[in-house]
Every structure is written in structure tokens, then in C-alpha cells.
């Protein structure tokens, strides 16, 4: 259970980190909080020759409101997000998802950028980013670019990021008006990865019709998933006429590869998935209706 040897680099900022990545190529791996990467190193599922540690890159940490979005630096820890009054006020779904991640000792080190770049299909933050339509900021030697969350997760544990590209921040839209948010998951023990989970963001118009809806699923595929067809089926509809159970069934039906493992068969996972979507949908709608 000891990681293989590697060279260690601790660049002072994002520019230096990107330059290092560009020079080292595919032999390098970024480490932020390390709460997913270090276990993979210990189990030797990952054996990089170089680790590029972002611990000194202070510019990558922080929470800042700007032009209708809340920008969260990649190295902002889950504990900082959990304690942030701005996050609780401006992006309540993110605030509610955070205590579900691991245990407080993990959240003291784990970062939002690490969670998204690791892209675990069973993790909370990728699903929240999908439900909210977050925009991921990345930097490479070719410059900076923005990747919408629904184009970011490209495969199992893989993302749109190139090998020499660094996730620098995430922009979450600040919704006002009649918006409601909920996250639901089922895990056998608190802190475990959920068997299935769902994050829902819904916005109603003045006539109680669904103006906008985002549904992010976790634990239900080989990647974090957005239930785009289920979202489309409710958008524009009068909320009173929407069958919450049907939303759950429709959302889960979109995943072509529901995983099966020691903890749950694919059928059980699909069932649990539909239930958590339905619950999250009901709570989000209720909150939006009273907003």
C-alpha cells in the first residue's frame, strides 16, 4: 500500500503549473487535495512519474461573486465551500451537496477542482455542476477556455481536459426568482459513495410552469450524467400536471450503462435512481413554488 516513486513539483501559480504540465506530458499528474488520487497511488492504479502539487498556487483558491456567477477557484476545499455564506446564499445546491461528500476529514483536503477533474461517476459535485449548468474554466499553453459542464465529462474518469490543461475555476450561475434545488442520494453508510443519487435544479415562471430544469445523476452510469430528455419533457409544462414518479423513471431510462457491483445490481440501482430523482424533484419544486 505504498505509492511508487515519483518526482514532486510545487509550482507557485497556474502559469507555472501549466508550463510544467506542458513539459512533462503524459507522465505528469496534478495533485490538489489528493483525497482520490492518493488512494489510487497507494493501490498503484495510477503510477505517474511526476506529481504537480497545487498547494502553493494561492490564486487558485477562493470564492468570488462576479456578473451573475459565483466563481470558485479549483483548489477551494470542500470544507471552505461548506462554511461559505456566499455559497449557501448564491448556489444553495452546492452547499447542500457538500456535506454528503466523504467525511469532514476528507472535506478538509478535498477540492472542487479535484472532484470535477477526477470525474468519478458516483461523486456529488459533477452531478451538481451538470444540474446547474456550471462552466468550467481551463488553462493551457494555448490560453484559457470555458467548457460547459455538459461537455466536460467524456468517459469513465475522463474529461474534456487535455494533458497539458489545468482546471482553474468553476463558475456557477446565481439563480434568483422562483428557483428550487435539491440533492438526494442513497448510500449504505453516511460518507460512502452513493448507490445512486440525483441533483435537481428547477425554475418556475409566474404561471407555475417549468421555465428551466436541470437534473444531474450520479452512480447511474460510467460517467456523471445529465438527464436531458427528462429535463426537456418537463420544461414548459405546468408543474401541477407533472408526475414526479414519471420524472424519476424517465431520468433513469436515459442511462445506457447502469453499473452493477457488490453493493447493488443494475436493476436495483435503476430503482433507487428513479426514487432519488423523484424525491429530489418534489423537494426542488416545492422550494421553487414557495420562493
Amino acid at each position, binding site marked *: *500500500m505504498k505509492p511508487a516513486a515519483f*518526482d514532486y513539483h510545487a509550482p507557485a501559480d497556474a502559469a507555472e503549473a501549466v508550463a510544467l504540465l506542458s513539459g512533462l506530458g503524459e507522465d505528469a499528474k496534478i495533485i490538489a487535495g489528493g483525497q482520490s488520487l*492518493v488512494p489510487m497511488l497507494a*493501490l498503484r492504479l495510477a503510477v505517474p512519474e511526476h506529481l504537480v502539487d497545487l498547494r502553493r498556487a494561492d490564486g487558485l483558491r477562493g470564492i468570488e461573486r462576479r456578473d451573475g456567477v459565483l466563481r470558485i477557484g479549483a483548489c477551494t476545499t470542500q470544507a471552505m465551500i461548506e462554511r461559505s455564506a456566499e455559497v449557501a446564499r448564491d448556489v444553495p445546491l452546492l452547499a447542500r451537496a457538500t456535506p454528503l461528500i466523504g467525511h469532514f476529514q*476528507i472535506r*478538509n483536503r478535498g477540492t472542487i477542482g479535484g472532484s470535477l477533474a477526477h470525474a468519478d461517476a458516483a461523486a456529488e459535485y459533477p452531478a451538481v455542476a451538470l444540474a446547474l449548468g456550471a462552466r468550467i474554466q481551463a488553462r493551457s499553453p494555448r490560453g484559457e477556455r470555458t467548457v460547459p459542464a455538459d461537455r466536460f465529462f467524456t468517459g469513465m474518469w475522463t474529461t474534456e481536459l487535455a494533458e497539458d490543461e489545468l482546471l482553474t475555476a468553476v463558475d456557477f450561475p446565481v439563480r434568483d426568482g422562483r428557483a428550487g434545488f435539491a440533492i438526494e442520494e442513497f448510500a449504505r453508510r*453516511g460518507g460512502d459513495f452513493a448507490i445512486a443519487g440525483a441533483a435537481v435544479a428547477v425554475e418556475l415562471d409566474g404561471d407555475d410552469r417549468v421555465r428551466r430544469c436541470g437534473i444531474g445523476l450520479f452512480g447511474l452510469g460510467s460517467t456523471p450524467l445529465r438527464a436531458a430528455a427528462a429535463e426537456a419533457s418537463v420544461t414548459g409544462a405546468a408543474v401541477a400536471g407533472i408526475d414526479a414518479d414519471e420524472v424519476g423513471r424517465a431520468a433513469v431510462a436515459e442511462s445506457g450503462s447502469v453499473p452493477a457491483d457488490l453493493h447493488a445490481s443494475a436493476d436495483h440501482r435503476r430503482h433507487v435512481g428513479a426514487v432519488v430523482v423523484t424525491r429530489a424533484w418534489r423537494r426542488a419544486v416545492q422550494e421553487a413554488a414557495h420562493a
Partner: protein
Amino acid sequence: MPDADIRMRVNGVTRRATVPPRLTLADYLREHCGLTGTHLGCEHGVCGACTVLLDGEAVRACLVFAVQADDADVTTVEGIAAPDGELSPVQAAFRDNHGLQCGFCTPGFVLSVTALLRDNPDPTDEEIREGLSGNLCRCTGYQGILKAVRAAAGTAAGGAAAAEEPR
């Protein structure tokens, strides 16, 4: 793979070393500092036995490399009791309430609970359970540990109440 020079304060003592980057903080504390109170159970972040305070925050020492703790302040279970050996309120409560049996997981629990009660001196039972969920115990059972945390919180709350009494 060049070694790195590190310096950190461990239980108030400044220590310098040259270590390979792959050395975890847990192994550094045990093998370089001789502080074997930090126990290693799973070595991949599940069991919590290796929990220490890193700049005051409870973390798993098996998921931090020693090079990442360069310039940091680390507290291990050896640094929790008073210099004269008097147990901390958390340690005393574990002893008094059958919060340990074999003791292997205890250092991790003591550090986690110390941080938990510092940040939330009067937790509800649900908050205590949530706060303990990152540490595994395989022999004592959790009821004694829960009782110990309640007792330690009571001691702290009792102390605070006494301090507020008019003189």
C-alpha cells in the same frame, strides 16, 4: 527521483528532514519522528486510524505526502495530553466511558473528536454520529465512543458555563 528537504512543527517541535516525495505524512511521523501513536490501518483513506491535525484541521495522514506538509503545523496523539501527562478532556472521557478496547483506532478518534468539539462544542447526537463516521472501530463498538464524546462535550460545556457565572 530526488528527495526533498522539509521542515515542519510536530507537537510544537520543529523538525527538518530530507525525504522521498512518496513518503506519506503518516510514515514520516512514525518512522522519521518515532511518533508511533499515529496508527496505519487501511492506508487508503477509509479507516481514519491515522488522523492527525494539519494546521489545526483533522486530516488522514495516509492521504498527505510529507512534502505537502512542508512548513505546516502537525499535532499527533502524542501532542494531545498536557506536558505533565494529564489526559485531555477527550482522552479522559474515552478512558472513563469505555471508549476503547484494543486501542488501535483510538488515536484517530481522539484527534477527530478534538477537532469536532473545538468547532462544535455542543453537538447533537446526530452531529456526533456524523462526526464519528470517518473513523472505524472494529472491537469496542460505537456506543462507548458516543458516550465518551457526549461526556467530553459536557465537560467543555460545563467549563464554559462555569466561566460565565457571575462572580
